[in-house]
């Protein structure tokens, strides 16, 4: 049968997950300050607060599995294991970036690392993941495709069409909705009568499940379970991760449409603090280790920024290449 990871997380893996969550968060914080310094073009959509989703899901994926992402891809890319220097270089619009400077923040990804360039059309990545899963199934590969999208994407027609086809063909794909309550400024309850996105799975005859998206172990377990089901021919699952973004929708958004109390409440449930707490309690972590982690992450990010800054820009004419293979 296909390779399936252990459900029980070893201490080693937990520590790696902890560091990766830190890396995600600190990457976003670094990007934020660099952006404010005007050192990055375009706009950015950040994911502080959603680290448990990114890391929990990616921890459950195998090397040759495929991940798709959205306009908010930074943490997904970090969690998937794309070296941060290539992500940073992309944000700096450098030739060494993961997309050669052609993609930018909204298209971060690296097919060679098991992640398509992120799709900035809301919902647009859903059929791509299903199609990739079709190729896995057809080629009899043991892999799955995992597709991140937001609560807002669940109202796009493509969500309906792609999930239905994945369902009738039992494709090895996971539809993972990061429900952070808002699509831009729009509260999910105002654009959907159902209480959870996962309920919609019933319309396609597939399992739907809602889990705490700020609990990285829960996210891991749920993803692994759904993944194993998919790997063994059981078809897709619609997995909803309840989470929250601490920052605004994009850099220009102060987020006045969200009650202060709501933001504060969620910050109380910071996924990193939660996991850190658990690891401290179990004695897996201690202040010293935490400090060391922070420091090593800082160094990794410093090196990434240095790499990005030292990297050459693409030549203007390079915009003409990569349109066609032939």
């Amino acid at each position, binding site marked *: 049968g296909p390779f399936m990871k252990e459900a029980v997380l070893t201490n080693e893996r937990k520590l790696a997950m902890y560091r990766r969550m830190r890396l995600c968060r600190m990457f976003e914080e670094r990007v934020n300050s660099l952006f404010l310094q005007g050192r990055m073009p375009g706009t950015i959509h950040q994911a502080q607060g959603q680290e448990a989703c990114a890391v929990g899901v990616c921890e459950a994926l195998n090397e040759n599995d495929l991940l798709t992402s959205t306009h908010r891809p930074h943490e997904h890319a970090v969690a998937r294991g794309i070296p941060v220097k290539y992500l940073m270089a992309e944000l700096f619009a450098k030739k060494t970036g993961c997309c050669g400077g052609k993609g930018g923040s909204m298209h971060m990804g690296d097919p060679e690392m098991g992640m398509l360039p992120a799709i900035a059309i809301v919902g647009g990545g859903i059929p791509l993941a299903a199609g990739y899963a079709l190729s896995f199934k057809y080629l009899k590969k043991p892999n799955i495709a995992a597709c991140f999208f937001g609560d807002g994407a669940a*109202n796009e027609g493509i969500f309906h069409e792609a999930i239905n086809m994945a369902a009738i063909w039992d494709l090895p794909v996971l539809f993972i909705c990061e429900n952070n309550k808002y699509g831009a400024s729009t509260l999910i309850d105002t654009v959907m009568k159902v209480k959870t996105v996962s309920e919609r799975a019933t319309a396609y005859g597939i399992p739907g499940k809602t889990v705490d998206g700020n609990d990285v172990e829960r996210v891991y377990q749920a993803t692994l379970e759904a993944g194993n089901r998919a790997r063994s021919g059981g078809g897709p699952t619609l997995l909803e991760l309840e989470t929250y973004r601490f920052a605004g929708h994009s850099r220009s958004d102060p987020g006045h*449409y969200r009650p202060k109390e709501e933001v504060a409440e969620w910050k109380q449930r910071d996924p990193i603090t939660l996991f850190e707490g658990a690891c401290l309690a179990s004695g897996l972590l201690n202040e010293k280790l935490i400090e060391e982690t922070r420091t090593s992450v800082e160094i990794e990010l410093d090196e990434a920024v240095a790499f990005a800054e030292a990297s050459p820009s693409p030549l203007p004419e390079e915009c003409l290449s990569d349109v066609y293979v032939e």
Partner: protein
Amino acid sequence: MSTLNEMISKPEVGGRKLSIVEALREALCEEMRRDDRVILIGEDIGVKGGFGGAFTVTLGLAEEFGHDRVIDTPISEAGFAGIATGAALGGLRPVADVQYGDFLFLAMDQLANHAAKLRYMSGGKLRVPMVMRAPIGATTRGAQHGQSLEAFFMHVPGLKVACPSNPYDAKGLLKTAIRMDDPVIFFEHKLLYGSKGSRKEVGGVEVFGTVPEGEYLIPFGQAKIVRPGKDITLVANLLMVHKSMQAAKILSESGIEAEVFDVRTLVPFDWPALFESVSKTGRLVIVEEDNLTGGWGAEVAARAADECIGFLQGPIRRVAAPDTPVPFAPVMENFYVPSVERIVKTVKSVVGG
């Protein structure tokens, strides 16, 4: 830029300087006050504490007109394009909008197969008085947030297409579009919105045009010669009108007087004015941000190559984006988007050659 812009939007007495965002907002506001049937429908356009749409155009309107008239939708472009069409059939005058023009492709079937054709299919019994607003243009957002899409919609019979270059035209054309009984795709350039609101863009053009208080309408199908000249006709729209004006300034220093032709609306297109200008100058260069192959400029060139062939003293050339998606990196994007230099160079190649 503001001086060039003055020339474009002929200052009127009693006018104030507004950005395009302010001019568009004023147009929506005036039309909503005038006619109850005018409603707005789109994403994040009326949410309390929200954005007023992706570029603040609808900011404050929900407060004045309420959420029955400023309708926030789910992220369902095809769906609300169709709902706007249906509401228009039912007697309302919906002004819908997509946050980025690129998303019009999601609504393409509803716009091109339905809104555009329903009147025809019904043998003339139906009217579809709706407007779909769409911000276009490259602003370092990459391939899925920077396309220019005029050509796709200019090619759909049944749709009308507007593309204002300045606040005066933006207000006057939007008011006309809202009162029109045909579906209108209304293109706005992100770099022309102006810096009011939180959305200032790098490379943005400060277009604060003088806009008269209150009532005025600009008919569709009337181009505007924003700079008269005898040596060559420069046809442009949106941001490219401003770049063409800058190019014209530089060209006149070397003795070439370019006539800058702002199309204002692509459908209907003011062909008589175009033919008159080209017949006079004998030379034609079209400037568009759209990809070269199949851009709206091709249609302009084709018409001139039919109607004005006897007057042409040189090749018809186009300054357009190359046939590639929009790249992210500014160095590449600046190469992609037609520059003043490229316009100057192309004009000289035509006048010289």
